[in-house]
């Protein structure tokens, strides 16, 4: 059976970023600037994506504003007919650049918040003055009239700030807020002792969000990703592998999800060599976890297999060493109790655990690692 066409493309324009968040979703091995796709190649890819059925384009990174050609890329995306969303920390955006992005047709901005106070936000982002700058950028976004979503990644150090984040979202005139508990892949794996939420925090967050959704109905839309390590059922990762969305890394590799490179047996095609539709329909990485042919008996016989698809492949890889295993968050996984206990141990490490910050991509003149 032919797979459905994708709706959304996440274009990771660059891995460069002024921030160094300890939970960065970029891979440990970062792409260097000179390996990034150029303007014309991205423009061709946006056009191929639209022909393939993609409706929504998310321009992300790293920090997409680190690309000098960001405005040209937005114009190319709109020209291809894509709904164009910019996912940014705000650092690197000036009022002038925002006005240019507006003229280029940018549809929507998602602004990340590392914390709701300058002290905490700048400590987590590893960038002094970042919060203040971000609030300036938010004001320009409001003046121009871009629709705004605030993105907040939650973990043990800032989970108590949800109510304040909801206040800031309303003050800035945001229509949406995404409150996502940190996913433990890549850089975040090395920070589990510092970032793992406690079970009490996870439960409190659900309570606060449920209440706020009711109170703010029609004013602020809240999208929430709860902490799944304390849960019994795995998440419906990516809405199903290779069914809804795809990622393109800065060097042109096409990925079924942003963490897919953590699965060692997968090989990825690049837009430099093949058309996007061929990669989507026939690429080995995309077909690896479509359907149920790959599933073990626990997942294959489960009545939820078309609901959660056995959960997250990258989480199965990270926690069991087997990417075909049942997601260990699932109560049916043999690893479930061990993972749960380990999560509780990480969560009990207290407030003084130092953060392992993300490092910057290497430079061409440095020896490859």
């Amino acid at each position: 059976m032919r797979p459905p066409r994708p709706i959304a493309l996440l274009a990771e324009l660059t891995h460069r970023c002024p921030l160094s968040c300890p939970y960065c979703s970029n891979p440990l091995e970062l792409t260097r600037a000179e390996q990034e796709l150029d303007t014309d190649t991205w423009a061709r890819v946006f056009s191929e994506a639209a022909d393939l059925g993609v409706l929504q384009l998310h321009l992300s990174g790293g920090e997409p504003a680190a690309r000098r050609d960001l405005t040209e890329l937005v114009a190319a995306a709109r020209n291809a007919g894509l709904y164009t969303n910019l996912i940014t920390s705000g650092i690197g955006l000036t009022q002038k650049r925002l006005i240019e992005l507006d003229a280029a047709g940018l549809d929507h901005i998602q602004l990340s918040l590392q914390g709701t106070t300058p002290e905490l936000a700048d400590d987590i982002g590893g960038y002094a003055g970042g919060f203040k700058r971000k609030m300036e950028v938010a004001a320009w976004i409001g003046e121009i009239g871009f629709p705004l979503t605030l993105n907040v990644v939650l973990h043990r150090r800032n989970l108590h700030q949800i109510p304040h984040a909801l206040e800031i979202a309303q003050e800035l005139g945001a229509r949406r807020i995404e409150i996502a508990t940190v996913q433990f892949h890549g850089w975040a794996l090395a920070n589990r002792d510092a970032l793992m939420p406690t079970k009490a925090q996870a439960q409190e967050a659900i309570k606060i969000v449920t209440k706020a959704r009711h109170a703010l109905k029609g004013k602020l839309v809240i999208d929430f990703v709860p902490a799944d390590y304390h849960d019994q059922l795995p998440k419906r990762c990516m809405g199903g592998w290779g069914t809804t969305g795809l990622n393109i890394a800065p060097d042109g590799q096409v990925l079924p999800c942003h963490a897919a490179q953590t699965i060692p047996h997968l090989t990825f095609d690049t837009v430099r060599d093949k058309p996007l539709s061929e990669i989507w329909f026939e690429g080995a990485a995309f077909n690896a976890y479509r359907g149920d042919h790959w599933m073990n008996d626990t997942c294959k016989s489960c009545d939820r297999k078309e609901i959660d698809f056995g959960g997250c492949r990258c989480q199965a890889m990270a926690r069991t060493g087997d990417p075909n295993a049942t997601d260990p968050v699932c109560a049916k996984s043999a690893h479930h109790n061990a993972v749960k206990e380990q999560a509780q141990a990480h969560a009990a490490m207290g407030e003084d655990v130092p953060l392992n910050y993300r490092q910057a991509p290497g430079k061409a003149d440095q020896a490859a690692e």
Partner: protein
Amino acid sequence: MELSDVPTLPRGVRLHHDRVRDAWVLLAPERAITLDPIGQAILEEVDGTRTFGDITTALAEKYNAPAEQIREDSAGFLTALKHRRFLDVAG
């Protein structure tokens, strides 16, 4: 939804013809909602100036259907969009 309300699609929300799937969709932040012919017909009338009363009267005439029924269906659809912040309503 009152007859005098003026519904409007805010910036960042737009009707779009999905040429690949040959369907009309409403594009909004992080969402693409496939519209059935009724939803499409309603949203095509939403222009930011006409009232809910005008719009539903026009639809009733166009489709030769009872205005009451059209109003009830349209109000449910538009209110759901309003709750998702995909529609603004001026009183």
